[in-house]
């Protein structure tokens, strides 16, 4: 750090490049990630890639809590001591730990904190207003547009009267999503059948409980169910029960289709926010963002195995079709 500073100072003196000196100084970004997990890892990669492309030199201090809340809080304290220029908190428990640290450490009140992979920032108490966060905490929410997801499933199944959803009732994010889905199905006059799991090993049995009760199954961005997606896909294939997902990574794993949420893009979006903050934007007035561009991915073999005929209009619209 010191060497780099001295070096760039010499360069500035030698070539008189005083105008570009500000951009040369590396920013320190501390990361509090809750758990190692393909989707959450993609968020961090996207974040780093975006800032690199924007030309920022960033030094990262990456910490991972290994899914332990006590550790997430210890990491938050560690980050206070690192005096970063910006903090990236990935997933709800880590974001809550950072938010509480701000309250307890006056020195953190000026450090911008970005959260990502948080579904319900209001419910989690991270911001008071999505448009106007008000303090030094803002970020990107992975809230998926439930109305669009349900509309997609209804395009595949115009006669749909009952839909199954499988999720971990212990995940705050999933609970928030299923509440939204319930509101949408009520509006559409569709009966929602819920199956819950407590751990990945429950997925197989819980999936079987939906057989015969529903015409299709939907999986939200639920860590527990997504990690055992193959078990679910197998049950659905064996019973010709069409399966739809909320993230595109689940399509090659056996879902008929997904209106894609892409965690890598999610991270890039957070990275772009960080870039704006480095250039002087105030987190307090930077609204919380959700992903806008959703791509449709379709898996033809899975559709065939689950007895789904795909309308031509959807095939035309798809961004990616797996043969």
């Amino acid at each position, binding site marked *: 750090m010191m060497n780099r500073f001295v070096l760039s100072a010499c360069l500035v003196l030698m070539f008189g490049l005083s105008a570009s000196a500000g951009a040369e100084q590396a920013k320190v970004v501390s990361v509090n*990630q809750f758990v*190692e997990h393909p989707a959450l890892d993609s968020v961090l990669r996207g974040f780093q890639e975006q800032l690199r492309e924007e030309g920022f030199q960033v030094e990262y201090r*990456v*910490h*991972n*809590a*290994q*899914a*332990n*809340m*006590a*550790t997430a*809080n*210890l*990491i*938050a*304290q*560690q980050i*206070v*001591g*690192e005096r970063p220029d910006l903090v990236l908190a990935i997933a*709800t*428990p880590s974001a*809550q*730990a950072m*938010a*509480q640290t701000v*309250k*307890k*450490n*006056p020195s953190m009140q000026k450090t911008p904190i970005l959260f990502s992979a948080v579904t319900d920032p209001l*419910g*989690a*108490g*991270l911001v*008071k207003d999505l448009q106007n966060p008000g303090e030094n905490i803002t970020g990107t929410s992975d809230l998926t547009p439930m109305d669009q997801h349900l509309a997609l499933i209804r395009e595949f199944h115009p006669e749909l009267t009952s839909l199954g959803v499988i999720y971990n*009732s*212990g*995940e*705050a994010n999933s*609970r928030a999503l299923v509440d939204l889905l319930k509101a949408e199905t009520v509006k559409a006059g569709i009966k929602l059948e819920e199956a819950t799991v*407590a751990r990945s090993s429950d997925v197989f049995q819980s999936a079987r409980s939906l057989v015969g009760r529903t015409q299709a199954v939907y999986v939200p961005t639920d860590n527990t169910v997504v990690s055992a997606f193959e078990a679910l896909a197998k049950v659905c294939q064996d019973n010709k029960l069409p399966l739809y997902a909320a993230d595109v990574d689940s399509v090659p794993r056996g879902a008929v289709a997904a209106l894609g949420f892409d965690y890598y893009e999610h991270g890039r979006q957070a990275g772009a926010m960080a870039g704006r903050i480095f250039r002087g934007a105030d987190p307090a007035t930077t609204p919380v963002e959700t992903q806008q561009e959703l791509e449709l991915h379709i898996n033809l073999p899975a559709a065939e195995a689950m007895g789904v005929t795909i309308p031509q209009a959807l095939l035309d619209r798809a961004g990616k079709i797996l043969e």
Partner: protein
Amino acid sequence: MTLYALLGAVEQGLVYGIMVLGVYLTFRVLNFPDLTVDGSLPLGAAVCAVAITSGIDPFLSLFLAMFAGFLAGMITGFLNTKLGILHLLASILTMIALYSINIRVMSGPNVSLLGRDTILDPLMGLGLPGYLSSIVLFSFIGAAIVIFLIWFLHTEFGQTMLATGDNPRMITSQGVNTHSVIIIGVGLSNAMVAFSGALIAQNQGAADVNMGVGTIVAGLASVIVGETVFGRGGIMRAVIAALLGSILYRLAIAMALSMKLGAFSFTPSDLNLITALLVVLALTAPKIKARFFS
């Protein structure tokens, strides 16, 4: 390790230390390996968080949490003594039942306390920064509970508990009903664990159904590290060692988090391994020392 990280580890050691004292009570005094704690810690947090969000005073909500934990522990004790279920299994049953109950209590998996009044606010109002006020407060609470526990274990009932753990057959032959001693003992232990959970929720700004995962591991590791470093002779020494063991255990994790070794660098996913190695080191250091330096 920075000063903040060090203070953070001490703070966590103190707040989880109350849980460790509860684990000490079952594990060492009653000789009852109790896994209920993985459920009763989030139960305490859940009850406390729901109480606070529905407008109950943060101090009073701590006692509600304690009471809920006491009931949970009594259920484990009841399953073990009256229904004759093996202690380990009885506690696992209560623990998994509490997972569902905790979600019911919170009407969801997570209740945020960010922006709510907590027991830390009066101290922070006095101008003490939050990271210090929590250490001051938890030191007082920890000391009070240590004193209570030492006093309690010297009472007649406490002595009966010690005897029940040491030699249940002997104590039964003396006409003591070990069943009620175990039920109350496990209840008391889980009251302390739930109290710790309630403090943790107020300190970290949220109660979450998954926050109890690994509580028993941390609890047992802390008790054992404390015993190894500070010895286990006498009640007073053992109780204080349990609380200090908790602080050492959290310091070990904080060290693991900030460890960097030149060209070979650990990745964040190595944290669990490093923590385990540090605890093993703490456990074996006295033996190695005894073998080579005496």
